[in-house]
């Protein structure tokens, strides 16, 4: 730690407790940061592409997760290095905004940092590098937009959407069933999509998991599945033409929020109070029954007596329905959420074709399926699989696929995958580099190299010779003027990604390049790291 001295030669403290702090400055700081971030990118690198491998992550409590999803990997790695954490956030913001391409974005950032490192060694100022990257990024994005194609999502039974979903699912453990799962995801999204507004509320798609069976037993339920059963074991297990009363008040005597005391001083009052109490239950059930409801779903618990009265009145009921489920049911069945018994009116009831209890396997687990809801705008994907890890990974994969489809509905422009889009951009950026007359030229050129790193990495993961295959694809792109030439990962015999039907959304690619550039710029701006010693 550097010391400063005053006029009399006495040292004085600049940072509080500086003896206990670590400080890195200048080039040393840059390099350390870049290396840390690259370490993360290196881990993810082998997960990229259809033949990418998975990572096994053991949590602090010893739970095991196996995944291919970039955002999940970096999140569960529990990274502590401050700059490496920036990459975690990068992956997560891609996840939050786009939902897919979380691995790609980190790998791209890693490649950019690698280039930056050599530029730093050449003695180029970090800010010049980041300026150059910025300009190159703009060029790449513009080019990306120019090579993007609009697709007709309606055509041929939504074939394009299914293909895009398949591309997203292709790299996951469920890739064997990508076609089936892709179809499920497309149907689910289209069921809830608002095509006029080009928007999809993903809250309406519920993904429920249950171990057992196999991934191909995964199915779409055009309704809602809730992990609950009827409150009384003898209630009827199936209700057809259900009129649902959705309550957020417990079947219990009221509990006013104001603190109060009821003082009983004689037997008369005692008896009265008892009668009053009984009356409460009777009234509650009566109010529900009178509204014409034939099933009650409640967010809270039931008193035993109320529970029995419901049974006696042929009113099947479900208690402790979670808050999110209550909202989902409200949206799907058109029910209004009723906070007080007095406010139950027939108009507020939701309608559904049927509600029934289903059972799984040999253990006594039951779930409720609400089907044919009045406003069918809610679906559930029930994922099955041989073990908890498979089911969890399938859930993440389906989520990715759903996000891709949503993005396509929002913006139907696509670019082709297999590294072709990155290659096309790299060529464009390279061309632009020669026009730059200042130091930034080197940075722009390096940006192109970094973009090439993606197809490189894809080829590597597929067991192809990365340098040969990238060089081939590059020269074919130039000679044939065809930006769709990429890496033939699946060894199908063609490098034209349009023929292979590898679709990626423009928004995802754009976001990847922009986010990665931003993070790299941020890392390049750090020239001083001060941290506690025991870090």
């Amino acid at each position, binding site marked *: 730690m550097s010391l400063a001295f005053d006029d009399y030669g006495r040292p004085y403290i600049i940072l509080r407790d500086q003896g206990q702090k670590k400080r890195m400055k200048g080039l040393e700081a840059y390099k350390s940061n870049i290396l840390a971030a690259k370490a993360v990118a290196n*881990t993810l690198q082998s997960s990229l592409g259809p033949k990418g491998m998975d990572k096994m992550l053991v949590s602090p409590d010893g739970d095991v997760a196996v995944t291919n999803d970039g955002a999940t990997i970096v999140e569960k*790695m529990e990274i*502590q290095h401050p700059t490496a954490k920036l990459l975690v956030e990068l992956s997560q913001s891609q996840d939050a905004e786009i939902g897919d391409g979380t691995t790609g974005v980190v790998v791209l950032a890693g490649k950019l940092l690698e280039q930056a490192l050599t530029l730093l060694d050449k003695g180029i100022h970090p800010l010049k590098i980041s300026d150059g990257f910025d300009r190159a990024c703009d060029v790449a994005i513009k080019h990306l937009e120019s090579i993007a194609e609009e697709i007709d999502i309606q055509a041929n039974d939504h074939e394009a959407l299914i293909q895009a979903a398949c591309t997203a699912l292709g790299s996951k453990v469920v890739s064997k069933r990508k076609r089936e799962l892709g179809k499920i995801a497309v149907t689910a999204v289209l069921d809830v999509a608002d095509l006029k507004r080009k928007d999809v509320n993903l809250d309406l798609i519920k993904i429920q998991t249950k171990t057992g069976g196999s991934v191909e037993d995964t199915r779409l339920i055009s309704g809602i599945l809730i992990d609950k059963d009827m409150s009384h*074991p*003898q209630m009827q297990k199936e209700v057809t033409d259900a009129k649902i009363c959705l309550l957020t008040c417990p079947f219990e005597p009221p509990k006013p929020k104001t603190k109060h005391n009821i003082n009983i001083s004689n037997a008369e009052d005692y008896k009265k109070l008892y009668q009053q109490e009984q009356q409460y239950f009777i009234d509650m059930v009566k109010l529900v029954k009178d509204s014409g409801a034939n099933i009650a779903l409640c967010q809270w618990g039931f008193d035993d007596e109320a529970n029995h009265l419901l049974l006696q009145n042929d009113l099947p009921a479900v208690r402790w329905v979670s808050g999110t489920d209550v909202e989902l049911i409200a949206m799907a069945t058109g029910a209004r959420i009723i906070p007080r018994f007095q406010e139950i009116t027939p108009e507020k009831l939701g309608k559904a074709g049927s509600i029934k209890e289903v059972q799984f396997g*040999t253990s006594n687990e039951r779930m409720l399926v609400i089907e044919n809801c009045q406003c069918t705008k809610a679906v559930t994907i029930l994922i099955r699989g041989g073990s908890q890890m498979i089911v969890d990974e399938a859930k993440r994969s389906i989520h990715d696929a759903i996000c891709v489809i949503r993005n396509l509905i929002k913006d139907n422009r696509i670019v082709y995958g297999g590294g072709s889009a990155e290659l096309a951009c790299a060529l464009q950026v390279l061309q632009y580099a020669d026009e730059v007359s200042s130091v930034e030229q080197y940075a722009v050129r390096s940006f192109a190299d970094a973009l090439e790193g993606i197809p490189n990495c894809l080829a590597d993961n597929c067991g192809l010779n990365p340098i040969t295959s990238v060089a081939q694809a590059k020269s074919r792109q130039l000679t044939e003027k065809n930006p769709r030439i990429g890496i033939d990962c699946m060894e199908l015999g063609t490098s034209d990604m349009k023929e292979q039907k590898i679709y990626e959304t423009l928004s995802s690619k754009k976001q990847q390049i922009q986010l990665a550039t931003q993070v790299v710029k941020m890392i390049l701006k750090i020239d001083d790291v001060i941290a506690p010693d025991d870090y």
Partner: protein
Amino acid sequence: MDIVGNVLPQVLKDEATEDKGEMARLQSFVGAIAVADLVKTTLGPKGMDKILKPTGPGQEMTHITVTNDGATILKSMYVENPAAKILIEISKTQDEEVGDGTTTVAVLAGELLREGEKLIQKRIHPQHVIAGWRIARDVALKTLRDISSENDIESQEFHNDLIKIARTTLSSKLITSDRDYFADLCVKAVLRLKGSSNLDYIQIIKLPGGTIRDSYLDDGFILKKQITIGCKRRIENAKILVANTAMDYDKIKIYGTKVKVNSMDKVAEIEAAEKEKMKHKVDKILKFQPTVFVNRQLIYNYPEQLLADSGITVIEHADFEGMERVAAATGAEILSTFDAPERRDQVLGHCDLIEEIMIGEEKMIKFTGCKKNEACTIVLRGSSIHILDEVDRSIHDVLCVLITTVKNRRVVWGGGNSEMQMAAACEEEAKKVQGKQALAIEAYARALRQIPTIICDNGGYDSAELIQNFKVELQKGNLTSGLNMNDGTVGDMKELGIKECMRVKEQAVMAASEAAELIMRVDDIVKCAPRKRERA
């Protein structure tokens, strides 16, 4: 953190580790194969049992478990290796989904990975191995479905199938010497359910004493409770009221209520009112005119006495399960309010006879001739609690398999027949496939064939010779041949009557392939720093 040149800064937390590539793969293989090897000696009719001994202070010698059940063994083990955890997980899922084949699934996954390891050593990329396995899995499952047969649920053949399946399942368990007896018992119990899959209705009561042979199926329903003193011990043509209500004293449920009195007289008044309230409740109950009153909660002396005085037999403290079973068996409604005596016929349960019986040294209440005849009880007897526990697990396995069979109805021949046929089909397929995948398909076939091989080995027979002879028999077209583990020959399964449930095999193949694929795809293991635990 001293950075000299290009030394990598620490990215993960202290104590966290990351293994990549070969190291990661090696770790997974070793872990998974170790788990599979551990349980593989329990496989088959000549499989051995394991003793599970809990660790922890003071419990070293208490609560030991002796078992042959894969899921139980794996569940109780504490393993650190993540790949081993995946195997344990699939075994658990198998247990929940079909109830049996929990060892098979772990062993099959382990054998697949053992074959996979060899392929990796030959420098074949894991993705190619997976691609081959996927083809093989589909072929195997298709073969399995093709060779299975289905009988009508009402037919005598189906009934015989069930008994055969039960016998096969039991043959690897402790009670194998009495398997005919227990097979019959379990099939009867399952058939009573009439196609419903609710295992709750089959109650298993374990009572130490006697021998295993003394176990029996009681077509009535037995409640492990006692009739309150002072009540009739035998009630014919009983009308049963099942309730879940407070019979100690009724709490005031309205929030914030306090009783405040200013004189002793008032206390007495309140007390009287309280008593009267209970009396009132009892009166209401009496209006239903039951002869037996079963309550989930405890009953205080006062209401008990009132009820007993009216000649009603009182059973208190029936827990949730007991209460639900009584209700289901007798067709009673579980009541919590008693204001509608006019619904008497609907809510009261009925059974021909309730009596207190003694099994061994314990008094229990037996309900015979119930309105709904679905529930039944299996009373298990045996010389020690360890034996009873193991018998209980075996019976549970059998019941699960039988219920699955009733639901799915497809059966295959046992004795390794289905595995060998699947393996043969995979090998056939491998000849047609181009590329490296074919090697993986062959490996898959070898892994499948390992199951009958291990069964042979466990029986102490010459597995290499037997399996080859078995292969030849199948090749000749004797599609019902299988391993005869009694005399170590290849026999005809049709004659021996060894059948298995197709669904169990199907689930085992699916789950094992999925797990093997999952582990195979891993090339990087990141272990987070273990959470620091506070010493309690």
